[in-house]
């Protein structure tokens, strides 16, 4: 049975870029940075493609909120195989509630069976959008989706999806990472899933895929046309590097060590 899945493609700084705090101390230096699709989102796109392939077709719609630069990430997802893209055009600060609000409206329009998001973005590590979204839609949710086998397993090589959709597409079985192990959830559809790192190994955008992506449609919206108030509810007032680690010291004996731990570091 064909299914429709909405996935996300946030534009984030490449983890190999060197991040520096700007002179005003309220953000980072943007010049010279490289960007890529949030790795957790990429895992979401991969999982969606596998699910659609397994369930006899359907659609993977990829969405992103930001300036026109996000087209690069949308194209990446399209090159991997997503069917079409939606761009919510927005410049300036953006918080998790705005993003979740935009996604909510898009989902109400698109009516997918399932939304797969990254559990968080690697830029600000917030881990909130999926949860807001499920709550506001009134959908079930399964966060931190993972799987039992390793990324080197045969199942992974043959690209079987880790999320298991029932034959009638009414329930989704999700294995999720929890402290100290894995937990299996059965969710009623529609639902929101957020991906963890070990869910799958995203494919390389194939060359024919890259060529095809150029002519796939990108639909444009803005928060205003979707009826979402984009005024940030959170403002970043200060940003600084973590303090540099101090050099270690040598202590003559255990007694001094205990003393320093108790009275200087105050950790015991």
């Amino acid at each position, binding site marked *: 049975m064909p299914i429709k899945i909405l996935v996300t493609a946030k534009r984030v700084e490449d983890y190999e870029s060197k991040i520096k705090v700007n002179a005003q101390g309220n953000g980072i230096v943007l*010049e*010279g940075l490289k960007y890529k699709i949030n790795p957790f989102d990429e895992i979401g796109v991969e999982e969606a493609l596998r699910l659609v392939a397994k369930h006899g077709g359907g659609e993977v719609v990829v969405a992103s909120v930001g300036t026109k630069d996000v087209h690069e990430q949308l*194209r*990446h997802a399209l*090159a991997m195989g997503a069917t079409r893209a939606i761009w919510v055009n927005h410049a300036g600060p953006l918080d998790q509630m705005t993003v979740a609000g935009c996604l909510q409206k898009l989902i109400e329009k698109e009516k997918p069976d399932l939304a797969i998001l990254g559990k968080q973005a690697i830029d600000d590590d917030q881990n909130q959008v999926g949860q807001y979204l499920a709550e506001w839609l009134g959908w079930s949710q399964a966060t931190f989706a993972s799987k039992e086998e390793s990324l080197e397993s045969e199942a992974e*090589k043959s690209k079987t999806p880790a999320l298991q959709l029932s034959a009638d597409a009414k329930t989704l079985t999700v294995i999720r990472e929890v402290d100290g192990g894995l937990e299996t959830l059965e969710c009623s559809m529609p639902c929101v899933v957020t991906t963890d790192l070990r869910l799958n190994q995203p*494919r*390389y*955008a*194939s*060359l*024919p*895929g*890259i*060529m095809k992506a*150029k002519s796939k449609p990108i639909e444009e919206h803005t928060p205003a046309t979707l009826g979402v108030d984009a005024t940030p509810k959170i403002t970043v007032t200060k940003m600084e590097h973590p303090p540099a680690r101090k050099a270690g010291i040598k202590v003559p004996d255990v007694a001094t060590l205990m003393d320093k731990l108790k009275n200087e570091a105050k950790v015991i």
Partner: protein
Amino acid sequence: MSAGINRYKADLRELQFVLFEQFNFAEIAGKGPYEGWDQETAKTILQETYRFAREVLGPLNGSADREGCKVVEGSVITPKGFKDAWKQLFEAGLKQIAVPKEHGGQGAPFALYAIIEEITSGANTAFNMYPGLAWGAAEVISQCGTEHQKKLYADRMFNGVWGGTMCLSEPQAGSDVGAAVTRAVKQADGTFKISGTKIFISGGDHDLAENIVHLVLARIEGAPAGTKGLSLFIVPKKRANADGTLGPHNDVQVASIEHKLGINGSATCVLNFGENGECVGELVGAVEHQGMPQMFRMMNGARIAVGIQGLAIAASAYLNALEYAKDRKQGANFKSWKDPAAPRVPIIEHPDVRRMLLELKSHTEGIRALVVKLAAHRDLSLIYQGKDDEKATYHASQVDLLTPIVKSYASDEAFRLCAIALQVYGGAGYLKDWPVEQYLRDAKILSIYEGTNHIQAMDLVGRKLGQNGGANFQTFMSDIATFVEKHKSHPIFGKEVAALGDASEAVVSTAMGFMGWSQSDKVTLVPLSANRFLEMMAKTTVGFVLLDAGVRAEEALAKLGPTAADRAFYEGKRYSALYYGRNVLPQVKQLAELVTFEDTSPMDISDAAFASF
């Protein structure tokens, strides 16, 4: 080098510069056969290829070197991971990028393909040879084969379903290809029975694809001696039915594989054809005695590919050495070398280490620009084909002229540059814990196969200089003269541009000298000086493209704000050009002087006088 760690490095910014800013990819993409291509797509593909190279190919480079290939029950087993890598490479469509659209590829410009090849070959030189040979052999079939052969063989080879090889060398026929004695006997059904031994066959057997198509040079019974009597045969490892299903083994036996200095992941095979009289081949294109011209299509491509292999290895050696030099602390700054209390500094602060690094940087960048220049000429010749004959001929002629230069200079330099990169590491570079010793070993084959570098030099002086009545060479020189005229008072490169002018004059006068020798009793001076002439011409060309890059970089710099992140990149291009212009270009004049000495001592010395044994 421990298993599974990627050591391959590329500077994507530099790759983009050469392709987009120096050789105007935007003017090639979208035109003629390159319809549907544009710069943005090319950029995405470079990024994806680099990622693929680091994640899939690079981690197998060191492990494959240590593991090597083995023969088990008559079949070659390639190193661990190669099979998956092959599958992923073709799934991602990277090898099909420049394959013509009618064979299921993307028909990309060669200029882009050259850079993609640099990346995949740099990440894993030995692995990259298997798909490279399949591609080259498929090209011959797609250009010279019958319609049936194109469909049955070329399509599958281009798409990684079947592999391919080129089988020229025999025990008595290495450089002298015409001495080949592998026999072909015509059968009643028009096919041929093949029998003979081919040696040194790269990828002669492997477990990466379900079948391998050998292109075999053989002599049909009664054909004349020498290269003119050779024909080219399609000889599959397993016989192929018309629908592509596989029949029985075709009596091609792996007699052994060689144990060698480098490219240990690439199986170098001795192949016996028709030991049991059961080896069947078919003529490429169903024509007899066309073996050499047909094989030359593959060899011209393969010679360029060898140049790219050299570039690829040297470039990664450079970037690894650079990283090491920033990290390794040893000695104090030169200015306080007498003070034992002075802080230890990273070796990149030492003048001699900086000299080595800039030697590496300028040469790898120069060779890259040379390779892409050749590739862009090839693309342009196809764009103008049938539209503007004069332009098409001009561009095609430059490809011919530059091919032996790319092959030889890139390969000789690769080995020398790897030695310098190793020197940057000091003792660590000699150890297998670091990647450079493998780079050095892998690079050595490049000056030998696909025609030794002397064979290339003879091709240059014997054929290419005089080609088209000398017009190809003259247009090449006049391109340089135009550049010199235009930039001789450049505020930054004026002096170096003048050195380019001197170098090109030296090349011309040496070429004239060769003509004189050819028509006199001094003819042995031609082979004696051919390698030196190739070196002169290569250094002049590389100086030319580096200065051209420098001029373009200065123009870009002038448009940038004082704190722009790209400034350092363009300043780097400036120093590559200045260094080469000051340290290498002036050598051309000196080499020309050596040539005028007409030294014949290698001929004058008797064999007995070389050593007393």
